[in-house]
Structures are given as C-alpha cells and as structure tokens.
C-alpha cells in the first residue's frame, strides 16, 4: 500500500481555533496527525484510524468530521475547531461542567470526541429524549463508562439550555 512518500508535500493555509496557520505538510498526512504532531493540539485523540470510534471528532467548517479520515491538505482554506478551541471560546463550558459533575468520563480518551459530537447534538433540532441522545452518540465509542453518565450530562445541558431545571 505504498502511497506518496513524506517528500510529496504541499503548503496549506487554514484557520485552527481562530489562528491562521500556514504549514507545509506531506500530502498523505491525516488531519489528526497534523493537528497533534505539527500543531501540538494533542486534545484530539486517535482511537482506530478508520473512522469508527469517534475519538478524533473535530469541527471543520461547522461540521463534525473524523479527523482520521481527512487529509490535512483537504483542510486547506478551512476553519478547524478542536477541543482546545471549543474550550477557549467557552462554547461548551456547560457541557464540560456537566461531564465532570456526572463523571461522564473515566480514562478521558474518548472525551474530546464525545464532547464535539455532543455539542453537535445540542446545536441540532433533534428531540431531547435519552434514546435520541443515545442514537446520536452512537458513533463515539466509550469503553469505560457504559455511556449512561454521558447521556445524563448531555440531557442536563439540553434541559438547562432550554431553561428547564435538572431533575
């Protein structure tokens, strides 16, 4: 499976967490590896490298993306937001607090991807039932928690954002 080697490179320019980045990168490099290894944004995690586990979920041009399935060069000209950016902007502060309060994480490895997907769910117009949350979160694997606390945390935030109290 020999593809283009590391010496086949392109210069890309993109905005990552609001900062303009211009870098040369091997054309074969995954976006997740570019974020982690070239930019030091290690909050995005690699769990399977084939788009199944969701640990590398980030936001590209407003949409959820598996950064292991996207090449860095495909992000040329894009707006990329990782967990570091979501944290800095305060956009998911309530969700982060709920995850901590509910212990919706154990080892924490799936958490940044889980939060990115949860943020997507909360931004959507989907029904707020537990089943709907479970269905939406089904592209993100967690091997530790059994998912329940994750559903609890998302439900708490959905309620709070809708102006309802947590039971």
């Amino acid at each position, binding site marked *: 499976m020999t593809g283009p080697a590391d010496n086949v490179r392109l210069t890309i320019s993109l905005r990552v967490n609001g900062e303009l980045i211009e870098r040369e990168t091997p054309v074969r490099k995954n976006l997740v590896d570019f974020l*982690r290894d070239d930019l030091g944004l290690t909050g995005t995690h690699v769990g399977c490298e084939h788009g199944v586990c969701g640990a590398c979920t980030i936001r590209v041009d407003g949409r959820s993306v598996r950064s292991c399935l996207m090449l860095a060069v495909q992000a040329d000209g894009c707006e990329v937001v990782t967990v570091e950016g979501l944290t800095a902007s305060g956009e998911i502060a309530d969700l982060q607090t709920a995850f901590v309060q509910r212990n919706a994480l154990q080892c924490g490895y799936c958490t940044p991807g889980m939060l990115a997907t949860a943020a997507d769910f909360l931004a959507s117009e989907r029904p707020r039932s537990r089943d709907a949350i*479970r269905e939406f979160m089904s592209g993100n694997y*967690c091997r530790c928690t059994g998912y329940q606390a994750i559903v609890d945390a998302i439900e708490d935030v959905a309620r709070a954002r809708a102006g309802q109290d947590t039971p």
Partner: protein
Amino acid sequence: MTSSAESPIGASLPRSRAARFVTGKGRYTDDFTAPRMLFAAFIRSPYAHARILHIDASAAMERPGARRVLTAKDIAAVCKPYRAVNNIFPTMNSPLQHAVAIEKVHYQGEPVAIVIADTRAQAEDAAEHVQIDWEPLPAVTDAEAAASSKTPVIHEGFDTNLCFQTKIETPDIDKCLQEAAAIIEESFIFGRHTGVPLEMRTILANYDASDGILTVTQSHQVPHELQGIYARQLGLAESKVHVICPDVGGAFGIKLQAYNDEIAICAAAVILQRPVKYQVDRLEAFISDVQARDHHVKAKIALDANNDILAFAVEDIFAIGPYPQFPRSSLQEGFHVIQLTGAPYRFRDYRGVLQVVFQNKVNAGLYRAVGQPISCALTERMIDMAARHAGRDPIDFRREHYRREAEFPCKSPSNVALTKMALLQCHDAVVDGMQIRALRKEQAALRERGILRGIGIATFVELVNPGPNYYTNAGLAVSAQDACTLRLEPGGTVRCRVSLSEFGQGTDFSIGQVVAATLGITASAVEVECGDSWTAPFGGGSWASRGIMMGSEAGWRAARTLRESILKTAGQLLQCPAESLDIRAGEIVEVSGRARMSVAELANIAHYRQGLLPKDCQPELTATSHYSPRDLDYVSSAGVQSSYVEVDAETGFVRLLRHGVSHDSGNVINPLLLAEQLRGGAVQGIGSALYEECLYDEDGQLLNGTLADYLVPMAAEIPDIEIYDVATPWQPTGAPKPKGVGEAGVAGASAAILNAINDAIYPLGASIAQIPCTPERLLDVIDRARKPPAG
C-alpha cells in the same frame, strides 16, 4: 478521625482529574515527545505458525528516513529471553520467549523485525521493503483439537500442546454423581474476547548512556513492576530504570503484563541510544494485545431427590495461545473456572478439571474479571437448568440454595476460602429493585402475543485483592504491598503520592477522599499523584479490583500518622495537650469546637517560621505508610445481575431492555465513581455476551481485526444500567474497608444475558450454551429446535 458530618468519605464528589480531560489536556503517552526521537514500526508475522527462513532488510534501509532494522539477533545482544514461571505451578510448560521471534513464529502478529525511522510513516513505509522468506507450518487453533494427542505439537522440544493440567475434587465426588437423583449436563463454548482500551498500547523509551538510565513513558498499569522487568531483561540495575505511566486511556488488564514488542522497544532505545516511540495501531492491537476466555467446558450439576444441589463438576479446556503471558502467566483464568464454579451455593461434592493448552493464536492474558465471567456463566446456567428440572422459579431456587451469611468464613468444596458475602441482600436488592416478579407477568402476557422476552439472573462471586501469599509462593516479582506518602505543604495542601495506578477508575481521587476524611481536611486540599516508579512510593499498582482496597488502607494509615504529627505540633505551638485538639474541615479546633488555627497556618509556620516553635519541636511533615493484606489470601465479594431481553426469533437479534446490578461494595467511598465503574463493567460484559469475539479461520488468521468488525457496545444498544448497591457502612474508628468494583460488572453480566436469552427462547424448545450469543448462533439453535433431526 474526623467527626464531621460532611466527611469526604461516602460523598459523590467529581474527580479533579476530569477537569483536565474535558478540556483536552489529558497527557497520554503519545502526547509526549523527546529531542531526536525516532519511531518504530514492527514487522509482524502474517502466519500463525511458520519458520522464518531469511530476512533481507537491505532495500528497507534505502528508504527515506530509515535508520535501522533490528531483528532477533540484534535484540538478543542486549535483551535476555524470558519465560513465565510460577512456583505454585511447577509443572507448567512454559517455552522460552523472545522479544522478537527467532527462527519460528507461533501466532499471527508475532514481532519478527523492527524498523526504526525518522517518522512513523517512514518506518511503516520502510517496513514494506523488508523481504522475509517463510515456510508456513500447519496451525493449531481449536482448543479441543489442541488438547488431542493426534494434533501436531506447536513447540519444538515439547511432546505435547498441554501447558498445564490440574484437578480439584472432593473424595466422594464419583459416589455422589452415581447416587444423584438427577444429573443435568451442558457443554459450553466461550469465544475469545479482548479488552479494546481506546488508547492503544504506547511506549516511549529513551536510554542515556552517560548516566546509564533507561526512561520509559508507557501506557500501563504497573510502573514499578515494569521497572524490574525491563532492568532484568536488559541487564540494567533496577535503580537505573525509570517508568512513568502518565494518563492511561483505558487498560482493563490488557496493559497489566509485559509485552514482547514493548520489551523490544526498550532494547531498541538501548541499541540506538536515542528516544524511540511506538504505538500499536488499532489493526495491530487486535493481533498483539492479549486476548482472553477461549474455553470449552463440560459442566454437570447433580441434584438429590428433593432437588437440593449435591455437586458441580466441570471439565475446562482453556486455550492460551503459544505461551503463558509473561510474567504472571495466563493460568489464573482457568483457575477461576475450577475454583469458583458453584461458589454462591451450598453443595457437598465437587470436581473441577482444567487443561490449559497451547495453540497458534495471540497469547491469552488477564482481561478484566479474568475467569470469573466464565465460572459465573457456567454456574448460573446450570442453576437455571436445575431450577427448570425442579419446576421451580430460578429466583426462588437460588434464594433457597445460597450460602447463608452465618456460614462465612468457610471453604467451598472447590477448596476456596470464602469471606463474608452479602448474597441474599444482593439478590433481594436486584429482584426487588427491578420488580422481577412483575416482569414475569409482563413476560407471560407478551408470550401470548408471540413476543419472546426473557429474564435472566446471575449471582457472581469474585476473589479480589489477592494478598502477598500468592505472589510470594509463586516467586513472582509482583508486589502485593502498596504505599502512600503524604506531604503537608505550605498553604495546607497535602500532596499524596500512591503506588496504586489510575486509568479512569478514580482510584487516585478516592484515596484522596480517604486521606482528607482521616486528616479532617477537605478533599480539595489533597492532591494525588501516581504512576511514576521513582517518585511514587514503591508498591504493586492496580489490578484485580485492588486499587481502592489497598490505596484506602495505605492512605488511611499515612493520614493517621500525619494527623498525629500535625496535632502534636499544634499542641506544642498552642501550649495545650494534643489530645485536646481535633482537625475539622481544615481547622485545628479544640474538642469543644472552638477554632484555634487553620492547618494552612500551621503548615506555613512549620515550613517558614520555625522560630515560632519551641526549641524541642521538630515537626514531621511527611508521613508514609505501607500496607499488605497479610491475613487473607484474597477477599471474596459478591453481586447479582439481572437482564431483561427480547429475542426476535426471525432475525436472531437480541434487544437488551433492562439490566440491573447489585454488588456488595463494602464501605463506599465515592458512590458517583462506584456506579460508573459498575455500569462500565456491566456494559463490557454485555458486549462479550452479545457482540464481541475474536474470530479466527482454521489457519489462525484473525478475521475481524478492526473496530468495524469486532463489535463493542455503543450507546444506542445499551439501556440505562440500574444500580442497586449494597453498601456496608463505615465504622468511623477503623480503616474504610471498601471492596473493589473494577471487575464486578464484567463478572456477572454475560451470565445474566445468557440466562435471559435462554429464558426467552425456552418456549421454542431451544437453548444456547455459547458466548457470544450472536444472531447467527441463535437462529441456528432456534432452527434446530423447530426441525428436530430425523430418526
């Protein structure tokens, strides 16, 4: 001991570490880099069994960025071979193992060579250019075939594929089986599972020849133990090896033992004298992480004329791959099967026969709950069959046959010492909590409409927190002792370093709660650190549900010592007897409650203003305590799980509607963390019952080595897991005495599911005794029941 009503023990406090994780600031091994770091890629055997005829690395060395190709010969120059030896089992066959295979490979995925390059991608590129000539050999894969004398022997120099065999039996078992009024039999097959921690195994090793120090950053459970292993294998002084386990992205026992590829990376760092990083990718994880639970078991239960249980008898063939995993071996899983079958119940006679066999699949290791899910599934399915034979509801049948609390401590007929277990309480907690009797009515009503629902109940017994006798007698360099060091710092913070390890359970934070409660300070005033073999006090680490059991005791002991020292110093400073003072919520108070000074003030004086102290006052501001449980070989612990499922007889799909867990968790330190441990474990057990299996073809090729093919549970398949915890309240004068819950969820879940499915398909005349219960297998048993064989 603090008398505050707001003791941090028993409080559902969120973990401080979680705040880092939700912001992406976790630091896992792959997040670490080092100057001049190189990357490794392994060339792994594509065959399950083959001879390596020739390796030509010349083309690979021409590739961009390639720095070195290491084969067995290179590694052997700095790294000794090894074998798993356990003095308790002197008859265990244990072939010599090499970090990189020499001459022959014995499983698909066995390391054959290592390519070291400037980047990981370049290492992987170059690896494709290493030419290897192979002579494929026939593979032995099936457990029963491996046990047969007609099957070729996979290890040269051995005359059998048998690794080990043993038998536990009571003198009258044969007589008992002859005289029994009824004997019910079943043959079980358990499929191989693996742990799938989301962070794959990762290691960064660096050897500095100037000071002779090997520094290893690694995703692992036992840094102190690894320090000794790497030192011995590489011929270094133990003091010259430093192992750091930073944040660990899930472990589950998969990261407990030593791996050939990880030892090889340490050897590579010594050879290259540069930092070398290696992370298995997900596809490699499936062919190199330890797997578990490849068992074929024939089981019997014997009843008397009153349908009381007379005996259990099990014959287990356990296939472990080509080697007992180094260093602890893989036998424990088989021992659990023959030691714990029948454990919750009263019966007289027993026979457990264990045959452990070699085969050409990746090694079996000590995956979460080890053999307990197997013994539980065997026992609980046999109990259901016995209840059915007796015409009794399986809930009532269990309740009547449990060992009573007054019987403990006792020895089971399988010769296992059982400590007090709250079997009846756990049983009632689940049966009442889930309202199982009401579910029975619902089930019956739905059956009328052709809807197949089933209720399964499973009682499990675990042996947790193994004591030092086992490891001492085994001759293993495994510490059953753990320690806690507390340092009172200026500002009143207590820095707590523990030898236990943390990979998501919250063990670290919970130990901090115990320390805070014992000292009389708030949980937020304790900072817990662990995972560094040099800075943490020496000890074992976390496995076998021992983390909180060991850590809470060590922390409690150290905190008592520090508390005494704080009060003594305060007494000298305030010119009153230490006994007249107490510490409450971080304040040093008179016993009456009148505040005198804060712990922070005292700490500041003790560190910076010693001139204020009497001349004979030399405050001791650091306390360390060690603890090993000398009185018991292990603690037995119990719980009950129940599943409510719906089976679609046309598609074979199983929908899990409800699942409940009760567990005797002793004194619960943090109910929030405890519940999530139980739930996470139960979901792993549910995965193993319904979806997960490492499937191999007859040549020993893994067929489903991706996360798209090896199915782990996702959020949508899993209902809320109902927790009905049975806690024993804390006695404020003693150590907290929690019982670990790391394995409880896994131990009983698959049995509850198996029983629920069998309950659902019983009206069809079908039954299943294979895990996982996949749709295909369910359709098979349903079809067979519908079309009985002719004649």
